């Protein structure tokens, strides 16, 4: 593409991004075309209203997972060396931002929110860029750049449909997988006791083991409430054992008594700062959060709809906007960026409880906790082995969710390399942190974070590999060749992998084209080659077959069994009927003496 062409395209994209009609269009695409069907394994589906007490308990269970992830701002707070009172206040501000985000995502109507139980959390994505910003310009730069990330996300939300080829689902799965590995790595370190100031002993590992086994045992073999609230029960058992064994020292508990029971959080902080050097890492973080959000909300759609076939972009756009606004708010009040909590989505899959009402309970509990410094302070006291076990348990579901999203698409060599090198570079950043020290200062924030580096690698390679990637493919077939149908199958298998198409759609395409070629050979006396052309654009797959010979008919009604068995017309019409039923749209015409069959498949 020429520079002028590129500029024109960029201008078009920017104009369309900023044009109000784009936002309205994204916001109006509110529901999937078919009504979601509640899966049998869900105890409480999205529109169900559980009993009040159960709602509150479920809310606390989700808040337990969200609160664990407050270790990420707590880590930045430690590095910023804030006084205790300011530390607790910053965590309270985090709780307010989290509470508002939880409510925004659960709103049942309007332009903002995914409309799912989609609790937010702090996670590993914003951690490394925030630490870099802290070193470079202190907390004001962290807050300012968090707002910038929120603005970027909000601007991306209405054009996600258009830029979807640049953000394919398998890279979203990669981000979720890297978040899972990051959570698992932290969980393992905490469970083993790596990085703990004082040497750990058997009691420490006992607490870690009992917490994990309690949670896993209840989840696998538990029934009823015990299964549903397994994480909370596991954490409680771990807490109790930590007190009994002295892993949580009594003097540590004394810190709680010094904190006030009730206090109104204050919003006074050192202001906001912005830096061009930090735009790149925070832009990548915003993209990673958006990709992860696409995967998360897609996972929620799958959990809540037994008939799920494809991502519904309206809810993804609104969910991305809600997250972007929440990040702008988080930066404004003075805390780190937020993302949808994959661990909480894993909890919904594990427990079969995904009622949207619980989202409001979570929001209310988080907002209430923001006014209770002693409760927030107890989070800082949560024993590391308990934290580690809970993180490791939720990481299991996050990792598998990421892998499922990656493998939901057909992957050719290019896409395999994109994912393989993305994972490799992410894991390298986690395992070999020293390799970041010798590289230019400006890109250190990217290279030192496994999630940011893995995402950047995959996005750049995906963009690079799109060069020369044909979205339109063509095959000329000799109808007399005995292996013509096998050739069609190989052709569409290779094309599907190159496009990263959904396997289920490609199976339908392969059947349709094989059946069409069979019918043309048997009933249409074709002269010369049969030409097959296919075009793919992520949302549509169109196949056009042209040949010189008699036309096929595509009846609305299937011929009777007797007609199929006893007449050639009935047998021929059965082929046409099956082709009609297999494709989403079908059309036949005659052009320049050739019969043209056009099949449309929604992707």
């Amino acid at each position, binding site marked *: 593409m020429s520079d002028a062409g590129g500029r024109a395209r960029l201008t078009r994209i920017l104009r369309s991004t900023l044009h109000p009609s784009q936002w309205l269009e994204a916001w109006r695409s509110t529901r999937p075309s078919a009504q979601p069907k509640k899966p049998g394994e869900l105890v409480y589906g999205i529109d169900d209203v559980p009993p009040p007490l159960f709602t509150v308990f479920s809310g606390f269970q989700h808040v337990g997972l969200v609160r664990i992830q407050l270790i990420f701002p707590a880590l930045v707070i430690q590095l910023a060396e804030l006084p205790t009172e300011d530390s607790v206040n910053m965590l309270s501000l985090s709780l307010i931002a989290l509470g508002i985000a939880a409510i925004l995502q659960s709103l049942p109507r309007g332009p903002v929110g995914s409309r799912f139980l989609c609790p937010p959390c702090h996670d590993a994505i914003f951690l490394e860029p925030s630490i870099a910003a802290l070193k470079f310009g202190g907390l004001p730069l962290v807050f300012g750049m968090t707002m910038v990330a929120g603005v970027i996300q909000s601007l991306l939300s209405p054009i996600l449909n258009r830029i979807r080829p640049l953000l394919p689902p398998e890279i979203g799965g990669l981000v979720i997988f890297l978040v899972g590995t990051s959570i698992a790595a932290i969980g393992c370190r905490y469970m083993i006791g790596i990085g703990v100031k004082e040497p750990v002993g058997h009691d420490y590992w006992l607490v870690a083991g009992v917490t994990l086994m309690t949670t896993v045992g209840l989840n696998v073999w538990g029934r009823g409430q015990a299964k549903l609230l397994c994480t909370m029960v596991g954490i409680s058992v771990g807490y109790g054992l930590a007190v009994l064994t002295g892993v949580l020292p009594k003097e540590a508990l004394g810190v709680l008594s010094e904190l006030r029971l009730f206090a109104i959080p204050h919003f006074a902080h050192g202001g906001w700062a912005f830096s061009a050097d930090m735009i790149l890492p925070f832009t990548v973080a915003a993209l990673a959060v958006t990709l992860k959000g696409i995967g998360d909300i897609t996972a929620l759609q799958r959990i809540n709809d037994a008939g799920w076939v494809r991502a519904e972009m309206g809810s993804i756009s609104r969910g991305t906007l809600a997250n972007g606004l929440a990040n702008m708010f988080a930066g404004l009040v003075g805390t780190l960026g937020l993302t949808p909590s994959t661990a909480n989505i894993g909890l919904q899959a594990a427990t079969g409880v995904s009622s949207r009402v619980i989202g409001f309970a979570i929001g209310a509990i988080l907002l209430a906790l923001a006014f209770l410094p002693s409760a927030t302070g107890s989070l800082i006291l949560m024993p590391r082995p308990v934290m580690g076990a809970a993180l490791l348990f939720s990481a299991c579901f996050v990792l598998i969710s990421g892998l499922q999203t990656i493998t939901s698409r057909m992957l050719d060599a290019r896409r395999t390399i994109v994912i393989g090198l993305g994972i490799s570079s992410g894991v390298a950043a986690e395992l070999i942190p020293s390799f970041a020290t010798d590289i230019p200062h400006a890109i250190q924030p990217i290279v030192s974070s496994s999630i940011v580096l893995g995402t950047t690698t995959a996005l750049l390679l995906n963009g690079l590999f799109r060069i020369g990637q044909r979205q339109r493919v063509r095959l000329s077939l000799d109808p007399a060749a*005995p292996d013509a*149908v096998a050739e069609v199958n190989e052709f569409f298998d290779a094309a599907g992998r190159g496009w990263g198409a959904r396997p289920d759609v490609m*199976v339908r395409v392969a*059947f349709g084209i*094989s*059946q069409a070629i*069979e*019918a043309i*050979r*048997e009933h249409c006396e074709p002269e010369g080659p049969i030409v097959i052309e296919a075009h793919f654009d992520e949302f549509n797959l169109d196949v056009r077959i042209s040949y010189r010979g008699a036309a096929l008919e595509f009846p609305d009604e*299937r011929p009777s*069994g007797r007609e*199929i*068995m006893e007449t050639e017309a009935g*047998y021929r019409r*059965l*082929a046409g*009927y*099956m082709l009609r*039923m*297999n494709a989403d749209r079908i059309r036949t015409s005659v052009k320049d003496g050739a019969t043209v069959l056009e099949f449309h498949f929604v992707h």
Partner: protein
Amino acid sequence: MKLVEAIADEVMVVEAYGRLDSTTSKGFGDRLIALLQGGNGSLVVDLKNIAYISSAGFRALLIANRAAAGREGKLALCGVTGEVRRLFDIGGFTGEFLIFPTQADGIGKLRP
């Protein structure tokens, strides 16, 4: 296409492997008719290893089904899952055949 034939509990069972298309369906259908005429008129056909079935395959099954009924026997299908199940559904054939989840279910139903 490959057919594996066996007798279980006095019921003839045919396991089909491969693709049921315009090239293979004629031989497949002829073999089913021969087995129906040679035996007691009942047959279980296991389709779990069939990857593809076109209109030609359905025609062969319909003809075999009619032949079984003509001898007061039964044709039972099993292993109709995944893509093959989808094709039975879109062709409207699910209600036209006796379909069982497993071979054992089909044999149990057809046992004399």
